[in-house]
C-alpha cells in the first residue's frame, strides 16, 4: 500500500489502496473528506479556524475553511460528489495547561470551524476523536474509509 504523508498546513488527495497519514497532531486538526462510492478522499492538516481573521494569511491551506474548500474542489475534479461525501476528524488537543486562559483553546476553535464548514456543505461527520491533552498520529485508508488514531499513552483507535 502506498503511503502519502500530509504535512502541517497542507492537504493531499488519494484513491484506491493508499494510506493518507499525518504525524504528531496536537492542537492542529486532521480533516478527512471521503467519497465511499469511488473510494477517493483527501486529508488536510489544519492549524487555524478562519482565513479572514488574521493579518497575513500566507499559505491558505493552514485554515479550516479554505483548506476544506480547496480540498473539495480538487476532489470534485477527481469525480467525487459532495452529496456522497462523509467526513472524519481527529486532533484538536490541548497540550499545555495555561495559567492565564484564553476564552477557548485553539484546538476547540479549530474543531468548531471545521464543523461549521461541514454543516454549511451538508457533509455528515462520521467519526471524531478530538480533545484531551495528548498528541495523535492519524492514518486514513482510502480503500475502506477506515481511520486509525495512534497515540503515545492510549490504545490505537479505529473509526
Amino acid at each position, binding site marked *: 500500500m502506498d503511503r502519502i504523508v500530509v504535512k502541517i498546513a497542507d492537504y493531499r488527495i488519494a484513491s484506491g489502496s493508499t494510506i493518507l497519514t499525518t504525524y504528531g497532531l*496536537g492542537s492542529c486538526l486532521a480533516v478527512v473528506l471521503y467519497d465511499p462510492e469511488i473510494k477517493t478522499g483527501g486529508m488536510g492538516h489544519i492549524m487555524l479556524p478562519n482565513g479572514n481573521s488574521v493579518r497575513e494569511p500566507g499559505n491558505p491551506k493552514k485554515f479550516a475553511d479554505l483548506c476544506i474548500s480547496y480540498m473539495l474542489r480538487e476532489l470534485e475534479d477527481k469525480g467525487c460528489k459532495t452529496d456522497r461525501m462523509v467526513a472524519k476528524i481527529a486532533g484538536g488537543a490541548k497540550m499545555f495547561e495555561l495559567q492565564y486562559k484564553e476564552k477557548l483553546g485553539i484546538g476547540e476553535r479549530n474543531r468548531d470551524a471545521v464543523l461549521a464548514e461541514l454543516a454549511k456543505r451538508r457533509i455528515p461527520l462520521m467519526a471524531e476523536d478530538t480533545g484531551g491533552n495528548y498528541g495523535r*498520529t492519524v492514518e486514513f485508508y482510502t480503500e475502506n474509509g477506515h481511520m486509525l488514531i495512534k497515540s503515545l499513552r492510549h490504545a490505537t483507535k479505529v473509526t
Partner: protein
Amino acid sequence: MKKLSEGELDFLRELSNIGVGHAATALSQLIGRQVGMRVPKVTIVDLSSVPELMGGSERIVSGVYLQVLGDARGGILLIFPDESSKALLKLLLKGEEDPLSEMGMSTLKEVGNILASAYLSVLGNMLDITLIPSIPSLAHDMVGAVVDLVLINLGEVGDTAFVFETEFYDIAEDIKGHFFLLPDPDSIDVIMETIKRKHG
C-alpha cells in the same frame, strides 16, 4: 513578519547567548557544578518544516511552555529530545530519573522556569520593558504535537518561525534543546523594531 538581515539575526543570537549565559550561571549554582550553555544557531524556517528540523514529527520530546506576561505578551517553548531530558535529569538529580515521574516533571519545569526567566530578563532589559514568565506547563509527547501550538501562534502572523538551538557544554553529557520565542501578533512589531534600532 518583517525580514531580518544576517546582521540582525547575529544580533539576536548574541542576545540569546547572553540570556542562556545567565541561565547557565543559575543552573550551575543550583547543582553546584559548572554548566555552560550557548546558542550556536538562530534559524528562520518555514513553519511546515519545523517538525522535521526537530527530528521528525513522531520523535518523543519533553516540552516546557511558559506564557509571557507584562509589557509585551507571548510565550516561550523549550523542547528537549527524550535522550537530552534524561541526561539533564541525571545531571541535576545525580541519579536515574524518568522524565515522566513526579520528580522528573517538576525538575524539567524548573529548568524551563530558570531558562525562561533569565532570557526574559535580558530581553526586557534590552527593550526597557518588563517581561514576566507564568508558571511552566509540561508535555511529554510527539514533537509535532508539542510544537504545533507554537506554529499556530506564528501562523497567525506569517509562515516562518524563529528557532534558537541551545546546547549545554562543559559537561560530559550530550544535552541539546530548542527554544522558541513567540511574541503575540501585537508585540512582534515592537520587538522587531527595537532589534533593528539597537542593531543599526
